[in-house]
């Protein structure tokens, strides 16, 4: 669980870190992208010239460049420093891409019963949601669900795989009309 007392200080520190890790936004000129949904009042500040994918306003950019996955210790829902750094970047991206919504999928390793792992995955997804909201993302833009142990990222049956399956994955998509 996130410790509420220490969170603000951590957030400040992490925001600084994340800002350093990201290429600095150049200007406030909106990117004109025929595929981006700008109807929701979103202003995209990314630079199409930077980053391997060019256009930052895509789910693929979020997945591969921002980082969509955070990992957890066995049976834990605490966000460690690595996870918080990734989530700070996710929040920053979401805050600058208001036309996108997010679904946070919680997962668990195969050990443990199906039902407990569904509940554990939900806790993990919720921990991520809380963090993103604390970083300024509107709660209405984030839904959570749990896949429990149903969708492992890695399929071997030892810690090398289990550690990759104890995860929460943020999946972004452009908000549909009326959303």
């Amino acid at each position, binding site marked *: 669980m996130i410790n509420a007392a220490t969170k603000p200080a951590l957030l400040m520190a992490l925001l600084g870190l994340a800002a350093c890790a990201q290429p600095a936004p150049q200007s406030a000129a909106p990117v004109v992208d025929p595929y981006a949904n700008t109807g929701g009042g979103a202003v995209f500040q990314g630079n199409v010239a930077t980053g391997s994918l060019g256009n930052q306003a895509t789910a693929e950019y979020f997945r591969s460049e921002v980082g969509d996955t955070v990992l957890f210790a066995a049976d834990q829902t605490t966000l460690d420093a690595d996870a918080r750094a990734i989530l700070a970047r996710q929040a920053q991206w979401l805050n600058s891409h208001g036309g996108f919504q997010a679904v946070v999928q919680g997962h668990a390793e195969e050990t443990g*019963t199906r039902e407990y792992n569904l509940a554990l995955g939900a806790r993990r997804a919720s921990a991520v949601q809380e963090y993103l909201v604390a970083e300024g993302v509107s709660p209405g833009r984030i839904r*959570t669900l749990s896949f429990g142990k149903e969708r492992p990222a890695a399929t071997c049956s030892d810690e090398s795989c289990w550690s990759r399956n104890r995860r929460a994955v943020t999946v972004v998509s452009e908000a549909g009309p009326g959303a």
Partner: protein
Amino acid sequence: MFRPLILASTFLTAGLAATVLPVMPAHAQDEPLRIEITDGVIEPMSIAIPAFHGDEEVAAKVRQVVADDLTGTGLFSEIPAEAQVARPGSFAEPVSYEDWRAVDAQALVTAEVRQMGENISVRFRLFDVISGQPQGDGMQFDARAADWRRAAHKIADQVYARLTGERPYFDSRIAFVQETGPKSARIKRIGVMDYDGKNTLWMTNGASLVLAPKFSPDGTKILYTSYDSGFPQIRLLDVATVTSRALTQDAQAMSFSPSFGPKGQSIVYSREQGGNTDIWLMAPNTGAGRPLTDAPSIETSPSFSPDGQRIVFESDRSGSPQLYIMGVDGGEPVRISFGDGRYGSPVWSPKGDMIAFTKQVGDRFHIGIMRTDGSGEKMLTESFLDEGPTWAPNGRVVMFTRVTPGGNGQPRLHSVDITGRNMRPMNLDFAASDPSWGPLMQ
């Protein structure tokens, strides 16, 4: 002393009708032949099931199912046909007990199977060879020819019940999840099959991820968790029409792990909101739910007691998953599991006396049973991953999912007697998980 054919009871479903046959001339029975099922080492009762009379082809099929049902319990050993010296010339001919004693048979089943167009008629008798007399009335089952397996299960159920003193369970069905595709993207669909893995019917098409079907007490409905809306919600399936409807659709809450109360009038389930999972109670007709627990911990896997008064569930409120019992109106739960390890997926026995559960100790999983006060804990199995027990309708056998490790690991259904003996994999040609054992069919 003969008496006329009497309609003893009617087995309405699938057109199975039972009739009591004329009683064979017999002495009064004071001590019926009986195999006691205890925790001690057991010597299977030797039983002779000579070729059934009547129409040869269908008679042979019915006989094989009766023999498989009985020997599959581990409680009976069948006398091989080669060893048998005597076979009556007809179903009505008196039994020569001496001949059966000579091959060490303790019990003898004789039967006649007649096919008349679309229907079959099966008559059987059970004999106590040792004391030389019939054990119970002969019976006749009339069924559609297509239901010949059910007629065979009914005979085996009669034999099992008379020889063990327990309620039978062969004429019952299992709801389960079939698993295909790679481990990282399993395709799951719900099926229903006979208890022995035959006559599979598919209830969902695999398009949506589905989990943990649970039979209603009358076997006509199935509760399950479906991701068809993109988010886990509970659906109710009608087995006869293979149609389903959503029972929960709150976009802000995940609902899962449903199971029926004993009369099918209420449903307990897990509902998650804001990361916290509690136990809820719902009336299936209205869909209106209310919470039974209100704790920041995980509460899941609820299961009703057969009298409908209590609910056993799993909670990690103590720091690790353990088993608790509460009243049907909620209230302060009582913890019943205290051993080393993590406990989950408790299921109340249909007899009411035991709870089966999953237990993880270190990196090994067990299916175990304990009394409802937590005493008498006993592990029945051990493997890399065993989980999700379900009780046979008579409370004597538990079926569960065993998963093999690795990237090519597969789930298989297994069953085990509550003595811990007679562990058997189900003979299926596909991978399957999450069994739910339905009621004895009428």
